[in-house]
């Protein structure tokens, strides 16, 4: 059992989820809003347990469905800071349709994905981000699918803020997370997360040998796209794309605790009312 403070945490010792949790916890503490005004949504998987290990509101829902929950919450309550956090299988696999369409909605949301390139909770199958050729119990001859590039997909869907962090560089990760959450609009962050139990390829050391921090975000979408697709000996992390020009929708209209007035509804109803 791993304990952090007086919390028992159900992750394996050494899991990349721990530094991500620590980074997120300190960012949440530094936000200009109290924890009561923050809601985390998540799906099912190891990463999706995250909300249980932080002191905020949360809705830990279904595998793959963290995003539509977040959309419903944000539309209902523009006053809340809404962050969806789940694994790569959850957000890009089972939940892939929500990933592409939530971005298109242009709400002021943060989408965090722990990218361990594996279905960890179910013990090691290929995730959308798994490299070709990777072998596991359901891919005994090696995964044949081209890996899904979440950052490139997010850019193409029109996300105004697209970034990558790494559990192996927690200080940098903290900065990225903070910038993402404070960004006004849909912010997408993919986070490299070593899974010490099931992923023996993309280890801390593997990332350490490759990852470098980007400087300023790239202003040009195509440059950003190219950068998002850099993979191999050198892999960039940081804010890859940031577009200030887009105003998120729906930030002003308050309907919570503002029930429709009898009079207004009466006026509508009167069209069906014949006296």
């Amino acid at each position, binding site marked *: 059992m791993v304990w952090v403070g007086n919390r028992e945490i159900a992750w394996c010792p050494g899991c990349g989820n721990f530094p991500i949790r620590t980074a997120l916890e300190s960012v949440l503490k530094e936000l200009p809003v109290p924890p009561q005004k923050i809601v985390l949504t998540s799906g099912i998987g190891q990463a999706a347990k995250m909300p249980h290990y932080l002191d*905020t509101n*949360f809705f830990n829902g*279904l595998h793959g469905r963290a995003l539509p929950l977040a959309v419903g919450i944000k539309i209902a309550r523009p*006053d809340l800071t809404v962050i969806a956090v789940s694994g790569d299988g959850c957000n890009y696999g089972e939940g892939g349709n929500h990933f592409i369409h939530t971005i298109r909605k242009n709400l002021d949301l943060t989408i965090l994905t722990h990218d361990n390139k594996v279905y960890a909770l179910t013990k090691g199958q290929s995730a959308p981000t798994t490299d070709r050729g990777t072998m596991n119990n359901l891919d005994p001859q090696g995964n044949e699918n081209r890996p899904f590039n979440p950052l490139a997909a997010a850019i193409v869907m029109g996300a105004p803020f697209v970034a990558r962090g790494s559990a192996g560089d927690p200080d940098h990760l903290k900065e990225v997370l903070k910038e993402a959450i404070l960004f006004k609009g849909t912010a997408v962050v993919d986070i490299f997360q070593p899974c010490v139990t099931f992923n023996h390829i993309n280890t801390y050391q593997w990332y350490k040998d490759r990852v470098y921090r980007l400087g300023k975000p790239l202003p040009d979408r195509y440059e950003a796209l190219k950068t998002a697709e850099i993979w191999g000996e050198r892999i960039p992390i940081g804010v890859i794309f940031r577009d200030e020009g887009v105003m998120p929708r729906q930030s002003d209209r308050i309907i919570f*605790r503002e*029930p*429709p007035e009898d009079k207004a509804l009466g006026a509508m109803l009167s069209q069906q009312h014949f006296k």
Partner: protein
Amino acid sequence: MELNLLIGGEAGQGLASFENTLVDILSKLRFRFFATKNYMSRVRGGHNYHMFRISENPVHALSGDGWDIVVALDRESEQRHKPDLKKGGLFISLEMTEELNKQAREKYGRITAANEILSGVVLSAMGCGDGDIARIEGDSLDPVRTGFSLANKWDVADRYPLSTRAGNHYRLDGNQALAIGALLGGCQFMAGYPMTPSTSIMVYFAAAALELTVHFEQAEDEIAALNMALGASYAGLRSMVATSGGGFALMQEAVSLSGMTETPVVIIVGQRPGPSTGLPTRTEQADLNFVLHAGHGEFPRIVFAPGSPAEAVLLARKSFELADRFQIPVFILSDQYFADSQQIIEEPLDTGIIAREYNVYGSDYRRYAITENGVSPVTYPGLGDALVRVDSDEHDESGSITEDLNLRVRMVDKRLAKFRGIRDEAIAPTPMGEADADVFLVCWGSNGPIVKEAVERLGGEGIRVGGLHFGQVFPLTPGMIDRYGLHRRKVVAVENNATGQFASLLKRELDITVSGRILKYDGTCFTVNELCNEMRTYFRKV
């Protein structure tokens, strides 16, 4: 006295506009009517027809007794429907409607005036004259008068004089009634993905969002729709979705999520003939079992199936209250026939809006506190010091994942304990006909008014039958029916499906043996006449 009218033609020939024009005039003139339609799943062509029953008495079903007037906008309509014209009825042929169109174009410079001219013909047949049409305004007035002259020419004026009229009333189709009920129930959030026959509920809600503090969100799929609604409900808004069988199929996992997280939500399922895509624009009642058992695992629910727009307003409104009271999913079963039938409602509607309560709790708040009745105190993020933690895994009182198996049992018991309160609230079925008859017809949902009229008609013929319409189909409690002594009577179920799903439910839940099943599954509704015939046969056989 009444007038039964059918107009048939291709999609795209303006049948729907004609329906709108006529019912609008009828409503304004306070005529009692029932209008419904039968249409194909295509945008142009094919064969569609709209049916109107205009009467001195309140009418809420098709009589099935033949047509007084048939209007054929194409040859197919003539072939199909002219045979059902009553003796002495008026057939308005393609040639006649062409004359009508010509006048519309020539006299009024707009083809849509044809709708008003034809309405004028109908009004004249009903005995209306210049004096009656004061409530019709502006542009329409003169074309209606042209219709009067045509009626004279076609010798149909005053043939079906309707003297009594309704008072103060509403005119609604089933989907409008559901949407209005939802708004009255304090619903502020709806998410949806278009699907016949429930799309128009979304359209109504989206339109309402222009005027009221409510929101409609078009989702990328039905999975997202229900998850969004659960998110919005969790965040503080009464929420709903509406769909049909195939879309509802995609919502199953989130139904179970609603059950586990105890997040209230209202789900409208507009039934159409299945399996699968089936007949997308027709009617059926074959998703009862699917809705009763939707979602994996065990959790409490309520299923309503209103029979009339007035009941739909009432039950939709109540659904939101009960969903919140018990923190459960509440289902409303509708169908295409119900959704697309327009009629007038003469009973008064309670139009007061009810709303969610917003209680504030402190930092020791536990979302799933175990209580005697299974219902935990609820609050929403950002109110007071409470953190609201909800979880799809089995959880402890504070919402944290648990694998404590004793606690698991207590949590199951807590959730299922709500059934007690739910059963106490059960809405009794509506009795019809003779309370002490030996034979009882039972029905649910849109068949209610049809069965009611059939029971009354048979009674008029001296055939003693009772009837029960179930607006609440689940749970079924002995208290709902004990006064009718159904165990001693012959029970006949009337359902729009091929297997008699409600009949089986009565067996399972209340140990009632249904000895006869009158089933229809060709995609159309029953008519009163059809039901009466079935019952006469039944009596001959018994």
